């Protein structure tokens, strides 16, 4: 940089310019924080966000809305409703009954955390809560399957109802796995995609198994 050492500005040339920093116009709702708005607005806004994500899960396209604004309300609602619907199974007092509420809850959340850790350890670029959000929201098809199963079981529990339940659960299991893979697979290194997808497959398989083997008492 020796050539620049003796650069100097001649003193007779005026230097002019502006040093004001342009400030964007204040949009009206930046002036008050969301603390002042009515509670109904807050709740409705959050509900709309959750509903939009449900729609994204049912029609999984490559949109990043699910990833960008993650929230865990949807997964919580789905997990609780699934765990509640899996209650009332055979013989809660006996040892060999179906999963208890706490077991379903733990399987879903602990399973989602383990899968997220697995994908991060393998070098994925997705953040922890984004991945939890996607895995939780993609339980939606299986919750729908559980609802359908309970309705079918009200009608009867013979072979025909079992076949219907089997078809519904298998279809929803495929839908869940494909939806979550569509959202999560892009953030993985390409030569490890199968290593990340397999635990997701196992996770939804276990949930599907719990739904399929639900027998009312």
């Amino acid at each position, binding site marked *: 940089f020796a050539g620049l050492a003796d650069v100097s500005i001649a003193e007779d040339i005026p230097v002019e310019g502006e040093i004001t920093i342009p400030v964007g116009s204040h949009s009206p709702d930046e002036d008050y924080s969301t603390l002042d708005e009515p509670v109904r607005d807050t709740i409705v806004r959050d509900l709309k966000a959750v509903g939009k994500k449900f729609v994204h899960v049912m029609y999984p396209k490559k949109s990043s809305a699910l990833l960008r604004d993650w929230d865990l309300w949807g997964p919580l609602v789905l997990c609780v409703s699934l765990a509640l619907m899996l209650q009332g199974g*055979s013989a809660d007092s006996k040892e060999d009954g179906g999963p208890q509420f706490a077991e379903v809850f733990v399987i879903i959340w602990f399973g989602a955390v383990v899968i997220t850790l697995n994908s991060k350890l393998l070098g994925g670029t997705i953040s922890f809560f984004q991945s939890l959000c996607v895995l939780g929201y993609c339980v939606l098809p299986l919750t729908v399957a559980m609802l359908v199963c309970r309705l079918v079981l009200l009608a009867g529990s013979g072979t025909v109802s079992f076949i219907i339940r089997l078809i519904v659960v298998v279809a929803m299991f495929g839908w869940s796995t494909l939806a979550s893979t569509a959202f999560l697979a892009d953030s993985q290194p390409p030569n490890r995609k199968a290593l990340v997808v397999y635990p997701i497959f196992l996770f939804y398989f276990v949930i599907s198994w719990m739904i399929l083997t639900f027998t009312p008492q």
Partner: protein
Amino acid sequence: IASLVMYLFAEFDDAANLLAANPDATTISIDEPAEIPKNQHSRRQEPGREEDDELLGTDDSDKTELLAGQKKSAPFWTFEYYQTFFDVDTYQVLDRIKGSVFPVPGKNFVRLYIRSNPDLYGPFWICATLVFTIAVSGNLSNFFIHLGKPTYHYVPEFRKVSIAATTIYAYAWLVPLALWGFLMWRNSKVMNIVSYSFLEIVCVYGYSLFIYIPTAILWIIPQKVVRWVLVVFSLCLSGSVLVMTFWPAVRDDNRRIALATVGTIVLLHALLAVGCLAYFFDAPELDFPAPVIPAHNVSTVVTKSR
């Protein structure tokens, strides 16, 4: 030039003479940098051993630590440290699984597949898959066995999942810990050629459990003969992987201790298989009086009647 060549040959002759006189001298060979630590231990250079050493790899005994690896330089409280245990690609995991299912006689699993890069992905997820496979297959098999009986009421037996998980994870992690501790203790008494790090032992055990997954699925078939043939077959395959891995590590030791170690490894492996078969899968031919008897009591009746 001829005299220069003669001079160089003379130098080599001198070196050879020196080496013949003092075989334990440290020599430096350019192609195998790992030879240096090997020559520092006093060893009998038997011709048969050299071939095994080539299969078994370098002597790591002066580098063994709880979790070996030159590349794990991040401190253990950072995330990057644990990422080094998952540094595998899909094809590597598939290769390791293939190596555990088709053991090649004479080839050491650790040397061939893992020595460069032990991982925790395989052991963890193979164990998880095995847990759920055993629980689901056991449930399905019991369902098919009792299907025709009018008094039978299907139960999902979800409790068994947690029992299966405890058993299999305890086997896959505590037995390697004990084995590693034992090998370290023997290593301090007898200089072994080969020693493994804790992570490599966990890897071998994890991948050797893979054969039990299709075995558990095939155990649904309600024939006693078929089930026991499957037990023996899978035990032979995965047992041979374990034996071929650990025999070189104890071979230099006292004969009895070596045989006892390898025998214990195989025995524990067999116990796992037989125990899972007995507990999770009801026997096909017995007639049950009423389904009120919980499945646990039934399987104890089954084991007593064997």
